[in-house]
């Protein structure tokens, strides 16, 4: 499969994932209580997701251009 097509599919997936995440985080912020686990969960989820997205793009960039 063409790399361009793959990256487009991945980009679309990330957009859908971002919308899903925003809705989910909105619910946690809206209905969570002070001092419960909602805030740490939001933080952990956001950090891990960003980490995966950033690392994947770095590796893709490296595979295509051979440099970082």
């Amino acid at each position, binding site marked *: 499969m063409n790399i361009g097509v*793959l990256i487009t*599919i991945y980009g679309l997936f990330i957009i859908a994932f971002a919308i899903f*995440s925003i809705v*989910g985080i909105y619910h946690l912020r809206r209905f969570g209580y002070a001092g419960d686990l909602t805030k740490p*969960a939001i933080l952990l989820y956001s950090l891990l*997701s960003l980490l995966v997205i950033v*690392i*994947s793009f770095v590796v893709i960039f490296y595979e295509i251009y051979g440099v970082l």
Partner: protein
Amino acid sequence: MAEKKYFPSQAPEEKIFLLIRKHWFNYIIFIFLAVLMLVPVIGITVYLVANGNQIPANNAVFLVIVTAIILLSTFAVELFGFINYYLDVYIVTDQRLVDISQNGFFNRHISELQIRQVQDVSAHVDGFFDTLLHFGDVHIQTAGERENFIFTSIPHPYSVSKQIVDLHENATEDEDTSSIKKYDEDQLEKGLEKGLEKGLEIEQIEEKAKELLTDPKTVIHQARGVYIPKSNKAAIETFSKEMKSGANTGQEHELKEGEESKIPK
């Protein structure tokens, strides 16, 4: 900043006694799901690290994208499960029981039950894991045709049911005491009006009111059909004697301390 409410109809003076979430065992399905989804991710990562230089760029990009998609999907599934699990809350206050049920993102139900409407509370622990991990259901039977309340899969159901019973008793006791107080106030007001009509001085009326209120017989009769304070032993004894001698109804009845009384007019 105003304090955040635990549920929309929470009154400012309402005290939260219990905030209960389902036992973590209910979340375990999502943990299994995460483990299953992470298996291919680990496989692909090991393969990429071991054969990084030999894999063509197209294939490597494909594998990286697949891995990222699986990982992000796992996080999304966990977020969905966490919202379903963690935003399902049972709240017990001094005035009501609240069941907040979150099903998915766009389905949230909040049902309430006044604690005075509670008729019967029972705890159920059925099954191997329930017994081992101390969780179960609490069934709350309501007065009237209302649907019964069920707190499902909550930790320590026995102590929760006991607390609900205690709060119910407190709530009904408060209600009875306030009805006696209201009755007393009404009677005092009427007495004051009558006394003034008769041309008595305020001090004289107050003196008379004090006598009436401390007379055990009066207290008993003011408490018509409602709770007799446990501390009022003298009143209970007088009433029991009266009932035994048939002064009021001609029927024999021993009134025990704290018992509800239906005194006929």
